[in-house]
């Protein structure tokens, strides 16, 4: 057991912090805060190029981060990475995420490409995902396929050297700014549902794609940077006879479920989910201690102090579970249940601290971004509306507990038991 970072890793963190201090200019901050612009009503056409979405300051910042080799540290050098360790990547992710800048390829689709892509796909996509030239929208969920993702209906039909795609995706975050879509579609309707799914990657400006914005409740008014799910607009995406070459297929026809699951599993490791679950703990403690005045501060309220300590401990467990997941990945191991456990504990903690804070701040907790008298730009109020989303997305806490029980503890599933008794 080693709960510390190596001297090299500590040095890296210092370097990253120094870099941030130097490079987080007001221009960058303004662009970070404005990055996810107001959602305009109505439809808009898809297909803006990745890098183009960034303002000049952010583009320059990412260029510099890339020059340090901090984008995609764990990826092989031949694909634009550094061949480095996952912990170092984590450190970089964490420190940039703390200032609202997303670094690293968690949730990018890159892990699945590395695992299942052709050499050509790897050489095409991974370096460009690392550099930020490309970014993927993840086209998974459909109106009737959320938790039960394998139930998806979006169809891809082979037609010569092409596939023709028809259907709809929903809650497709970043579809309006991504260069490509990473799409799960049904290629066979005659087999059990998990066995007829394929993954395609193709540009968002392919003809026949329509993106319709969806405004989330956390983002109206616009959520401040750092809110759990606030900075992301989401979308519906419609596919109307979208024709893509068969080279868009990732990992073989009808193999999509396994390929996609790989991606989802890797998606659960990293700084991002952990940080969104615990940022409010840090925020409230720091706010309490920086807002003490004689006699009557909230920081002196003993019930609040007790709750703060309780929550802080829970947050430490979030951190330690994340470190455990990182340790497993770093050793090249596979999760039995640890990733699922982390994904129960962290989101539920995030909700508990969020709701606990409402009872600390009282009426101030209702104030939203842009209001007079807000505390921390209204982040606590916005967070009430979104913290629980982290316990729903990418496998709900219920499904995660099922997985802990079944994969981790070997408890039987109900249907099989019934079948076995017949």
């Amino acid at each position, binding site marked *: 057991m080693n709960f510390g970072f190596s001297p090299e890793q500590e040095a890296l963190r210092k370097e990253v912090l120094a870099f941030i201090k130097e490079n987080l200019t007001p221009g960058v901050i303004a662009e970070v805060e404005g990055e996810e612009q107001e959602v305009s009503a109505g439809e808009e056409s898809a297909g803006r190029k990745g890098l183009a979405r960034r303002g000049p300051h952010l583009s320059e910042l990412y260029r510099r981060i890339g020059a340090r080799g901090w984008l995609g540290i764990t990826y092989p050098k031949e694909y634009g990475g550094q061949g480095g360790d996952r912990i170092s990547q984590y450190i970089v992710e964490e420190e940039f995420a703390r200032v609202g800048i997303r670094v690293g390829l968690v949730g990018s689709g890159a892990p699945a490409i590395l695992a299942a892509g052709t050499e050509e796909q790897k050489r095409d996509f991974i370096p460009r995902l690392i550099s930020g030239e490309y970014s993927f929208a993840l086209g998974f969920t459909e109106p009737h396929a959320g938790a039960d993702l394998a139930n998806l209906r979006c169809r891809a039909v082979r037609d010569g050297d092409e596939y023709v795609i028809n259907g709809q995706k929903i809650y497709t975050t970043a579809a309006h700014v991504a260069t490509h879509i990473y799409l799960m579609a049904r290629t066979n309707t005659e087999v059990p549902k998990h066995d007829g799914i394929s993954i395609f990657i193709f540009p968002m400006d392919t003809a026949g794609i329509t993106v319709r914005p969806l405004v*989330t409740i956390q983002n109206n008014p616009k959520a401040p940077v750092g809110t759990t799910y606030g900075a992301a607009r989401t979308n519906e995406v419609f596919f109307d006879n979208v024709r893509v070459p068969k080279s868009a297929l990732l990992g073989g026809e009808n193999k999509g479920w396994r390929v996609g699951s790989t991606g989802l599993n890797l998606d659960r490791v990293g700084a991002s989910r952990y940080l969104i679950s615990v940022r409010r703990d840090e925020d409230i403690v720091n706010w309490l201690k920086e807002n003490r005045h004689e006699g009557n501060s909230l920081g002196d309220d003993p019930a609040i102090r007790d709750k703060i300590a309780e929550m802080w401990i829970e947050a430490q467990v979030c951190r330690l579970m994340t470190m455990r997941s990182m340790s497993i990945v770093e050793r090249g191991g596979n999760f039995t249940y640890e990733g699922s456990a982390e994904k129960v504990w962290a989101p539920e903690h995030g909700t508990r601290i969020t709701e606990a804070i409402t*009872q600390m701040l*009282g*009426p101030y907790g209702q104030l939203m971004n842009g209001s007079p008298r807000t505390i921390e730009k209204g982040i606590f109020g916005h967070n009430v509306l979104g913290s629980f989303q982290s316990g729903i997305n990418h496998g709900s806490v219920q499904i995660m507990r099922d997985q802990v029980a079944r994969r981790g503890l070997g408890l039987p599933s109900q249907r099989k038991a019934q079948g076995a008794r017949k």
Partner: protein
Amino acid sequence: MDVLLTEEEMMVRTSARQFLERECPTTLVREMEEDSKGYPPALWQKAAELGWQGMSLPERYGGQELPLVFLGLVLQEAGRAVAPLPLHSTVTAALTIAQHAEEKLCEAILPGVAQGKTVLTYAVTELDGRTFADTVQTQAVAEGNQFVINGTKLFVDNFVAADHMLVACRTAPGSRGNSGLSLFLVDTKSPGISHTPLVTLARDKQSEVLFRNVRVAKGNLIGTLNEGAPIIESMLERGAVLLCAQMVGAARKDAEMAIEYAKYREAFGQPIGAFQSLQHMCADQIIWIDGGELLTFEALWLMDQGLPASVEVSQAKAFCNEKCEIAVRHSQSIHGGIGFMMEFDLHLWFRRVSAWSMKLGTTYEHRARIAHALIDLPGRVVLGRPVPVVAEA
């Protein structure tokens, strides 16, 4: 002992529910979120015709003089419909006027309330953010036949719609805690009053209100000079428990929507409502909401009997703050992604219940009051018998 509704109570509830189902669709709720006053005067007028504003006001001012439990039932329905009406702030202030103001003031204000012509509110909370009267810093200084008010009030409900407001002030210079406080009726249009709208979770109308040398006639004092604390506290308590009624009503409707959704929405070859974990979430929602409702109406009933109810009010609010919030969060979770979208109506309830959980006393504030009554006052406690009343500070 019969905690179930009487036929008369059932009738009041049913008619209020039917009225709002008819008159208050969610399109109206959304529209009023953008409205500068935040409420539709026509609906306000119709509510008055049904006697809502005057429900528990004396008959001589045009009220129905019904017990507070009836008013609670109406506010529960207002919560259920997330009705955009300034009902809670109006009745909270009006009941205090009816109970403590001199006849002349009552005659001047209350008939208009009962007729739906007048909107009221109250202003106690200040920069400190806490609910109870001991945090008041706003000063009112006697000058001839008037008091001159200076200070800042925060989170004033419906200021933009209100004609008058009750303002808690410190009238004994240098006083602290609950001493030296007085409550005044103030015309919201008085010179020297300015306000800034706040942007809130509920998208309701709350304001920061600045008082700069605002003059109010001495006759507008409610109760005795410097001895306003009990009046202010009882106003806040009544406000808190009536807000609980709203919360419980809203949370129940919200839970019902989730339960219905769970019956229809399928995943893994089943309605999601067939999964035990989801069933247990729904069961908990109802258990919590039932608990909040029972606590709320017990407190209202005690008030109706003229019995002490401070502890019971705090019980209701502390419980509803936490449990109604979890209940509506469960509804969001059960709805998955769709509930997170502005275009779907569910958030209309979620945002309001969440916001109300932060007003008129946090869980910690209310629990501290309960602990004081339980532990610091003499005598053994027995559940089901009155706990010693919170002593005046």
